[in-house]
């Protein structure tokens, strides 16, 4: 079956590949929203604002670069023109916001490395596990967007839990700060040193320990790269319950530590549901074995949940036990048009009810997002006749019985059409068409990059309120910017993007802290799937009340009294030092 001829042809089959449909979806997570508040981070829920005044004195720490840009980690983005564009955006960024940069203060209680430390590490890890090579360190000191840069002089590569334990025990006794590092694909500066923290790189701990084909439970070390796990499971007829664009580099230990969301969340739920057990090394080197492989286990407090999403600030994840669903081959994708946001919500409700177990994605974009994609990306066409619709929805189903699933989806769509929920729509007839529908949704960040400067926010909001923010922002900014909204409607996750010709302080002050305050007022989250890291550590009060944050700080203090694990991140600087 020689398919080469077909592949060699022009733009028609541009988005085809030999990979499965799952793989065709680029990373929704790559819709990065990197931003930094330049003012007023001390906002709590409504009237409680006053309680936080003491935090605002601590204005010393703001990250070096105060502004962010998007990076789209799709294949298409790797070519040089895209990189050029990225560089251009970065220049904008510095020009616009350099003056707002301020430094974080290094915690003076941390020791600095000496030659005895190095010899000790060489003793436990051998020469090969202790890296002082400058080039290597330069890479490890910088995040993949080159937004954050630390100055660590040492990278350690443990090969076993025992070695991780020895490293931490020593660092704790010497009061050496540590930054755990996986694939270093984070978006909020959580995986790179801020100053001279010792980098504990997990990539050599990449063994699969066991896989149970009956229960679908995988046990592996924390340094396993997500894509390798996906490939391993594919041969067994299973999939990982999470998938994201950074899968080629990101590691499962890091995914767990950041509670990574990704593409399959609406179907399989978050890692809090799928991770069955963890082995974690605490700051003092104690190994906590919570590596259960049981779906049900009500014996005492379920401590593993503390470590899921703690961004490496409570312990280093050395082993993971995770529940994996079977791979299903029947995938259908529909691209639909809705005339108003209310219909989108109703459609979501109906889809959950009528498509039930086969619904695997429910994404939405507004007409301005579609226009951007059609105007800025080559080879993308509107699947629907060019009538003006205000909203577009992408629905994906995944199931085990192709004719049944298709009939079910068709039935649902025709019913929704008769009921007036959707004004038009198209159903992909083959994988190529399905990919081209996904391409529209996933091409938005890339199109935004091409359109000029972009301010990005990744917010969790109640679904019924989600689009109000976009509309308010539109009124607020009127003609000065193009405000677009898209995201994972099924998860209540909005990507609010504000596109302008160039970065401008005036526009930023119009957006922030308004966006955070608005999100806070509606009890949303200022970080839906990316975490707080270094970037938003001080903004935590927008989404969590003081009492909750203080409890977090006490837990941190108890598990890591000297605060050596991933310092300056997750919790406000004022509380964690």
């Amino acid at each position, binding site marked *: 079956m020689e398919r080469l001829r077909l592949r060699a042809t022009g733009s028609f089959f541009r988005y085809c590949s030999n990979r499965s449909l799952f793989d065709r979806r680029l990373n929704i997570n790559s819709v990065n929203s990197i931003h930094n508040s330049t003012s007023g981070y001390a906002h709590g829920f409504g009237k409680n604002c006053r309680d936080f005044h003491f935090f605002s004195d601590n204005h010393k720490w703001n990250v070096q670069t105060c502004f962010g840009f998007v990076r789209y980690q799709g294949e298409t983005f790797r070519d040089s023109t895209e990189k050029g564009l990225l560089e251009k955006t970065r220049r904008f960024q510095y020009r616009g916001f350099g003056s707002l940069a301020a430094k974080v203060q290094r915690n003076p209680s941390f020791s600095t490395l000496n030659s005895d430390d190095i010899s000790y590490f060489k003793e436990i890890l051998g020469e090969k596990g202790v890296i002082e090579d400058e080039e290597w360190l330069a890479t490890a000191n910088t995040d993949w967007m080159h937004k954050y840069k630390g100055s660590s002089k040492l990278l350690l590569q443990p090969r076993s839990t025992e070695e991780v334990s020895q490293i931490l025990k020593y660092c704790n006794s010497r009061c050496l700060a540590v930054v755990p590092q996986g694939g270093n694909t984070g978006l909020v500066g959580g995986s790179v040193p801020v100053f001279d923290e010792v980098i504990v790189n997990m990539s050599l701990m990449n063994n699969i320990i066991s896989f149970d084909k009956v229960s679908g439970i995988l046990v592996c070390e924390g340094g396993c790269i997500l894509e390798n796990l996906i490939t391993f499971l594919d041969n067994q007829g299973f999939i990982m319950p999470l998938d994201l664009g950074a899968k080629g580099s990101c590691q499962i230990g890091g995914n767990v530590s950041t509670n990574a969301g990704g593409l399959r969340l609406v179907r399989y739920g978050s890692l809090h549901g799928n991770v069955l057990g963890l082995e974690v090394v605490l700051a003092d080197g104690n190994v906590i074995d919570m590596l259960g492989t049981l779906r049900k286990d009500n014996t005492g407090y379920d401590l593993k949940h503390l470590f899921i999403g703690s961004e490496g600030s409570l312990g280093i994840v050395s082993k993971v036990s995770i529940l994996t669903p079977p791979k299903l081959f029947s995938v259908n994708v529909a691209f639909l048009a809705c005339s108003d946001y209310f219909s989108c919500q109703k459609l979501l409700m109906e889809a959950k009810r009528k498509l039930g177990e086969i619904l695997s994605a429910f994404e939405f974009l507004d007409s301005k997002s579609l226009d951007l994609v059609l105007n800025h990306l080559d080879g993308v*066409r509107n699947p629907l006749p060019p009538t003006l619709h205000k909203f577009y929805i992408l629905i994906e189903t995944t199931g085990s019985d192709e004719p049944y699933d298709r009939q079910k989806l068709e039935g649902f769509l025709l019913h929704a059409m008769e009921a007036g929920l959707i004004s038009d729509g198209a159903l992909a007839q083959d994988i190529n068409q399905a990919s081209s529908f996904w391409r529209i949704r996933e091409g938005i960040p890339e199109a935004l990059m091409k359109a000029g400067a972009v301010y990005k926010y990744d917010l969790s909001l109640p679904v019924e309120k989600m689009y109000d923010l976009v509309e308010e922002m539109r009124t607020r900014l009127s003609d000065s910017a193009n405000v677009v909204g898209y995201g994972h409607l099924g998860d209540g996750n909005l990507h609010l993007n504000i596109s302008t010709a160039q970065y401008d302080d005036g526009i930023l002050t119009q957006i922030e802290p308004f966006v955070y305050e608005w999100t806070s007022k509606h009890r949303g989250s200022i970080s839906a799937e990316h975490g707080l890291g270094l970037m938003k550590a001080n903004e935590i009060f927008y989404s969590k009340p003081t009492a909750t944050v203080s409890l977090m700080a006490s837990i941190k203090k108890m598990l890591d009294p000297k605060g050596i694990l991933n310092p300056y991140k997750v919790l406000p600087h004022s509380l964690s030092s």
Partner: protein
Amino acid sequence: MKIMVAIKRVVDYAVKIRVKSDKSGVETQNVKMSMNPFCEIALEEALRIKEAGMASEVVAVTMGLKQCVDTLRTGLAMGADRGIHVETSGPLYPLSVAKLLRALVEVEKPGLLILGKQAIDDDCNQTGQMVAGLLNWPQGTFASKVVLDKEKQIVTVDREVDGGLETLCLDMPAVITTDLRLNQPRYATLPNIMKAKSKAIKKFTPEDLNVEIKSDIEEVQVTEPPKRKAGVILSSVDELIDKLKNEAHVI
């Protein structure tokens, strides 16, 4: 004038092909099946001709197992007016398909028969030529442009040939096979999917059409192409020279 379009159900273009473990063929169980991309183009061209007012009806024809009806429904959802399904159980080879098509042409009497230039599963690229031969109709294969002149009853076809483009003028009725650059097929929209539900699909058996299905081809074995060996990283130029001399024998 009627246009008849042949469409084939094949393993989806984007699916990774796996060979059955007993080497008897390609795995099609639990594999996404779709319309052959060249057939989509053929159907799109027929629809455009009809929309331009040059044809009165587009009839889509498929052959094979009963699941082929799904593919036919896709064709109807794209806009074909009605469908014909010749139900067979065993494998079908180009000559049998061509004979069945000839029999159907005699029933339907279309002015144009449009096919994809080849199917992406067996890559035969024979059916269009064979059916033209059997019908004794002129053929324009690998079409990248089709222009119809209704009054003169001729069709002008640009063909993609090795050296560039060849333009042929065919008297109708004629057979056309389509290449990739001819057009970009449309999506099946929901209103059209809804309409397609009420469109008629007529069933035939090879016996109905007086065609005996037999094969002059015996498939001995299907195997995957050999896997590429992983590369090695060498530590020195000397090692490279040694490998080139003693393993690759190229210097």
